[in-house]
């Protein structure tokens, strides 16, 4: 992906892609105008270099640069060879305490088992690890009292060091355990934006709270934070776990001497509020409650939509054509997609998605949007042989233009993630397509509002203010959280302010 970006920026190059020849990538290339028999014949064992440029000279120099970049990973003569196995690495670093694993899923269990057997904690980024393998790995981690974050764990912050994807967050007294990567990023950045900070944020991987796995990592994480002197408040984040797992996690939580915020998204968690437990329905609320308990101001930045933004949203509504009725949410963050659905369901009832909160509202990710639609562009169907949409904006850009052409689209809602692992310049990726989308709508006699939230902080290398300003200059309405961006989108689409707790502002 980084190579595609570098080549695209070369002078004379109009578009370029250096990708694995998966079916999805071949289709995308064909839609982008790259049609060739060699592409049709390529298999997943092949890599496709596709370059469109204004002349032959530009293509030749782009090809030369591609070869240089593709070869840059090779060890040059005279360079010290790297260890080839964990065993060899431990000869160099016998006191290592954590192994970060991101090998293809079918090899991940083997590497993780070896690490655990050597007494090492594991951050397992690899996906496509079977549930049976996860159960086996977690039984071992539990027995050895080692932390196994993952599989499919996108982010953790341990001792203020980011593992995988994640943001630069102030040190503080709020600890988190999260089964959701973007959920963890959203809540930690909101805590930072509210002027507070975190002790540790432990990712568990998305499958940890399934009934078969039983929340092993969440319970371990909770117990570790319980012992941690820096942690005063603990936040637990997950999509709704199974009944037995919920019971197990809550039993441990109830024994805690610390204040705990439970955010099992989409569940009515109010019955959980006992003793030191608090419940939050959405990520934004979890951050607010945690900040309040940790001694911050009651009124954090994301608690309300400023009056002038409400006025702006209402005036945007008035500019909509009569057919423009629906919100189209295009998300890189799966949990943000989930959070938006929860909010929009409370306003509009039905919301369609490829990762729906209610199963009856499922639509295929590549199908046209239906009424209010939220698409998780990080879902498996979009990432086969491609980088995650936090890095590769290609498919999301195409979808933004598709929604702009739809006369029923009232507002496009997007999320942008900064920090380690994300694209170097997300706003730079989006600005031209946003301008194009607005122009498409304008040519058809429509106004097209676009609302976004940026998950990030000033400490992130992309810079929060830079990114927000660049998007704002392109005419995007920027909100400080995904929940508020969703609520503003709801006002634009409906022309009404909300009336129930999820819509409060």
């Amino acid at each position, binding site marked *: 992906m980084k190579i595609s970006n570098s080549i695209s920026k070369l002078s004379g190059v109009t578009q370029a892609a250096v990708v694995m020849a998966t079916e999805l990538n071949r289709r995308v290339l064909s839609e982008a105008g790259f049609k060739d028999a060699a592409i049709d014949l390529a298999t997943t064992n092949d890599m496709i270099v596709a370059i469109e440029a204004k002349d032959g000279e530009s293509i030749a120099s782009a090809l030369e640069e591609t070869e240089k970049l593709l070869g840059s990973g090779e060890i040059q003569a005279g360079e010290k060879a790297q260890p080839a196995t964990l065993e060899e690495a431990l000869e160099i670093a016998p006191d290592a305490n*954590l192994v970060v694993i991101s090998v293809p899923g079918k*090899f991940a269990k083997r590497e993780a088992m070896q690490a655990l057997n050597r*007494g090492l904690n594991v951050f397992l980024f690899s996906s496509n690890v079977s549930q049976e393998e996860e159960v086996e790995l977690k039984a071992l981690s539990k027995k050895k009292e080692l932390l196994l974050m993952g599989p499919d764990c996108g982010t953790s912050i341990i001792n203020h060091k980011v593992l995988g994807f994640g943001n630069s967050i102030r040190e503080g007294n709020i600890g988190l355990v999260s089964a959701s990567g973007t959920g963890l990023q959203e809540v930690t950045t909101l805590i930072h934006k509210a002027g507070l900070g975190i002790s540790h944020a432990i990712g568990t991987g998305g499958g940890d709270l399934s009934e078969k796995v039983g929340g092993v990592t969440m319970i371990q994480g909770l117990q570790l934070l319980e012992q941690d002197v820096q942690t005063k408040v603990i936040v637990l984040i997950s999509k709704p776990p199974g009944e037995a797992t919920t019971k197990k996690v809550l039993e441990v939580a109830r024994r805690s001497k610390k204040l705990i915020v439970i955010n099992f998204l989409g569940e009515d968690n109010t019955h959980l509020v006992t003793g030191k437990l608090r419940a939050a329905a959405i990520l934004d609320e979890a951050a607010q409650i945690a900040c309040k308990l940790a001694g911050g101001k009651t009124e954090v930045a994301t608690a309300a939509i400023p009056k002038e933004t409400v006025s702006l949203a209402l005036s945007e509504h008035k500019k909509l054509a009569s057919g423009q009725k629906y919100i189209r949410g295009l998300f890189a963050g799966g949990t943000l997609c989930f959070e938006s659905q929860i909010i929009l369901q409370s306003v509009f009832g039905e919301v369609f998605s490829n990762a729906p909160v209610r199963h009856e509202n499922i639509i295929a990710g590549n199908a046209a949007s239906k009424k209010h639609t939220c698409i998780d562009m990080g879902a498996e169907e979009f990432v086969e042989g491609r980088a995650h949409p936090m890095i590769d904006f290609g498919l999301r850009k195409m979808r933004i233009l598709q929604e702009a052409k739809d006369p029923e689209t009232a507002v496009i809602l997007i999320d942008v993630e900064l920090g380690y692992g994300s694209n170097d310049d997300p706003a730079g990726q989006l600005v031209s397509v946003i301008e194009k989308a607005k122009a498409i709508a304008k040519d058809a006699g429509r106004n097209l509002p676009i609302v976004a939230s940026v998950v990030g902080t000033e400490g992130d290398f992309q810079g929060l203010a830079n990114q927000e300003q660049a998007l704002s200059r392109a005419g995007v309405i920027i909100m400080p959280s995904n929940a508020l961006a969703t609520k503003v989108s709801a006002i634009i689409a409906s022309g009404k302010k909300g009336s129930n707790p999820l819509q409060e502002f």
Partner: protein
Amino acid sequence: MPIEKKTEKKNILTEKLKVVNIGISTFADDLRSQNVEVVHVDWKPPAGGDLEMLKLLEKLGL
């Protein structure tokens, strides 16, 4: 058979991180930029990626 590291059981939250990175090298680069000591493994699929052979190796504890 791998020999288990005979060290006192420690808690990852209270220790300074020292990492072995197996797989995507940018994770090692990101950790180094945060002043974390990292050893990166130049990983290749074991048994040339042959899963049957891999299962045999696992049976032998290799």
